[in-house]
């Protein structure tokens, strides 16, 4: 094995003798690869909790009128589920874990621009996550405002909103620092010859994401601080009684939280863009279009927040403008989907697990995207607003989109990260089970929502029983699928077969170094002479 050689340049980042033993060698490490894995550990622990909460909420709705959970408990559960999934799982998921691990390698750098700041970001993230847990057991107990913290209820409720909001503030700060780190890394640390249009597209997507993290996150930071100011000091800037306007809160909140959707989905799109060329053994189709569409999504995505507020009260002009912009964002997203499909056309496709996960992503994300357009249409939105339709849509985009792309990325890069291979057939089985479970769980929600089932309700009318039941059965299929997948990966972590440095035949930089990667990634910084994704005969021509 390569990483057993004495040459210090190729000592693996996992090597215990070279990096020191014990937990301190991890939690004090400034190695971007180790920090990436630190994020993964925290994220997935919280993910497990939030999945359990989601599962419980589904189960509690098994029969109408029974009210297994009290309204208060149900409110608290969907709030915690949302806060964990959005702020602690999905937002950091791909950038902080896979991005941290692979961005420097993909652009031929030894680390990110600010390694110590990177570690600090992780600590801020962990403190935020821990405070979020503490907020459940202190003060007035678990918050029941929904993850949106809408005023006036978030000011009036006796639950522990102050601490929870502060924890989200910290997590946001961490996310913003990561954005600063990535943007600087991409600007300053690309390998010689790696021009902007020679960067792998995952790096492009992280670049677009980074700008959103830097420019949008401060908006939620100040919004949350204003809630805290309202609760702690009585300076309540959204109170109509003191000249304020609660609608402005919603504007500020969505000015961050809509772009945050693109913090979630852009890196996911980047991951699948890396996977597709490797398994169709063809250069990506429309490289420039994909790179530019990332920037376009980040730009237009920052201007559409108002579509969350069509029923809140807005001028007619603002409504149609936000609606129009919403439809415009769909264009660059469509550009990506068409380019992915075109990249597969005529390729020699290998149906390995990462590509199968990618197919699932494209399918689920497309459904999520199209249902998003339905909500973006003004007249229709009045019908579906605040119903299960939204719940279905957001799960198709965030879970079916981001989380499936994250799983695809993990299956793609697992052999690189750990030098071991999981059982591919079990991975395929897990995907099949998850895919069936996912659609059984979330698709009925579109129908339920269309028929008028309101979201965030702890009880429902008997007419919705069938739909709810199908959806609940879906959760019984989805969760075992997740368990199979994670068991397979964790087993491989310890007992997996050793795998060569480039098991998939990939051509981007990470496949040119040993597995697991050496501590400093490259013994010698590579010199880049061509665009990425050049395979076989073409590579010799270059």
């Amino acid at each position, binding site marked *: 094995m390569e990483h057993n050689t004495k040459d210090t340049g190729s000592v693996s980042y996992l090597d215990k003798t070279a990096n020191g033993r014990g937990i301190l060698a991890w939690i004090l490490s400034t190695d971007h690869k180790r920090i990436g894995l630190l994020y993964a550990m925290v994220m997935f622990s919280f993910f497990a909790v939030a999945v359990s909460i989601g599962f419980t909420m589904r189960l509690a709705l098994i029969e109408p009128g029974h009210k297994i959970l009290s309204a208060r408990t149900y409110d608290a559960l969907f709030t915690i589920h949302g806060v964990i999934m959005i702020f602690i799982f999905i937002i950091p998921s791909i950038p902080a874990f896979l991005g941290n691990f692979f961005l420097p390698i993909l652009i031929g750098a030894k680390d990110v621009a600010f390694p110590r700041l990177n570690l600090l970001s992780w600590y801020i993230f962990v403190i935020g996550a821990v405070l979020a847990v503490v907020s459940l057991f202190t003060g007035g107990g678990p918050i029941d405002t929904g993850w949106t913290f809408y005023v006036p209820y978030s000011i009036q409720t006796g639950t522990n909103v102050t601490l929870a909001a502060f924890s989200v503030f910290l997590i946001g700060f961490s996310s913003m620092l990561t954005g600063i780190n990535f943007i600087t890394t991409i600007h300053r640390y690309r390998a010689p010859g790696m021009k902007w249009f020679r960067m792998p597209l995952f790096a492009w997507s992280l670049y677009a994401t980074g700008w959103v993290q830097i420019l949008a996150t401060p908006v939620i930071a100040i919004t949350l601080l204003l809630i805290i100011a309202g609760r702690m000091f009585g300076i309540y800037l959204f109170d109509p009684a003191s000249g304020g306007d609660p609608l402005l809160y919603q504007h500020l909140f969505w*000015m961050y939280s809509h772009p945050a959707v693109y913090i979630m989905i852009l890196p996911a799109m980047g991951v699948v863009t890396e996977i597709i060329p490797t398994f169709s053994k063809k250069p990506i189709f429309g490289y420039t279009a994909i790179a530019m569409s990332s920037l376009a999504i980040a730009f237009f995505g920052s201007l559409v927040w108002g579509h969350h507020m069509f029923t809140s009260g807005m001028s007619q002009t603002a409504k149609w403008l936000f609606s129009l912009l919403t439809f415009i964002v769909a264009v660059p997203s469509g550009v990506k989907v068409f380019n992915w499909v075109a990249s597969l056309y005529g390729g020699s496709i290998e149906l390995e697990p990462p590509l199968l996960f990618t197919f699932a992503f494209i399918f689920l994300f497309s459904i999520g995207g199209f249902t998003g357009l339905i909500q973006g249409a003004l007249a229709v939105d009045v019908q579906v607003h605040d119903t299960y339709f939204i719940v279905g849509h957001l799960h198709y985009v965030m879970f079916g989109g981001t989380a499936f792309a994250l799983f695809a990325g993990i299956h793609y890069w697992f052999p690189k990260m750990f030098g071991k291979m999981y059982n591919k057939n079990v991975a395929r089985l897990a995907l099949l089970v998850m895919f069936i479970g996912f659609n059984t769980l979330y698709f009925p929600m579109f129908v339920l929502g269309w028929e008028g089932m309101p979201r965030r309700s702890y009880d429902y009318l008997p007419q919705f029983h069938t739909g709810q039941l199908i959806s609940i059965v879906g959760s019984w299929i989805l969760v075992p699928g997740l368990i199979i997948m994670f068991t397979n990966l964790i087993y491989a972590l310890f007992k997996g077969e050793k795998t060569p440095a480039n098991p998939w035949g990939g051509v981007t930089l990470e496949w040119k170094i040993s597995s697991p990667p050496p501590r400093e990634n490259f013994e010698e910084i590579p010199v880049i002479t061509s665009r990425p994704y050049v395979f076989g005969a073409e590579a010799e021509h270059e």
Partner: protein
Amino acid sequence: MNDMAADVREQADTTGGKLGMWLFIFSEIMFFGMLFLLYAVYRTRHAAAFHAAAQNMDTAIGTLNTAILLTSSLFMALSVHATQEGRKRLTEIFLSITIVLGISFLVIKSFEWLAHFHHGLYPGSVVLSRLGKGEIMFFGLYYVMTGLHGVHVFIGVAVLTIMLVLIHTGKIDKTKFAALENAGLYWHLVDIIWIFLFPLFYLIK
């Protein structure tokens, strides 16, 4: 050859560090920008009330604080320049003056707040609640915006104090002054935000 590579790397680090600082400043602008947005909306809605509430502000104190902060920015710039010239003692003096001016700003600001409190103009007070909605909003914005600005000045003073220690111990000198420059950028940002706060609360009457 190795040394040259190290030099290039050092150069890149300095530029990278400055780029990172600018990105951070962009985020700060968005942070305060949202407060200015709220101010703009509420001022439009309660123009007369804002006008009336502003009569409670002491323009003289506001002007004094503006002068103090602007002067501190001058000394900040001078201390960066002095470092580049390699004049350690002078750098320390300039930076110390910057810090003292920063602290003076905070002291004056606290006395100003205390005076408002004394007149019963604090959030939730009886005096304030007898006034109109617009006046309450004016003071709400005033406390939030100058308060968060004050926090930034406080952080700035702390950062500059660390810089002073680093200069004293020789960690920052003629060859390595990127950290001081970045601290300076932050200080100027804090200054500029005040430049906008000053007219909005003290001058528009």
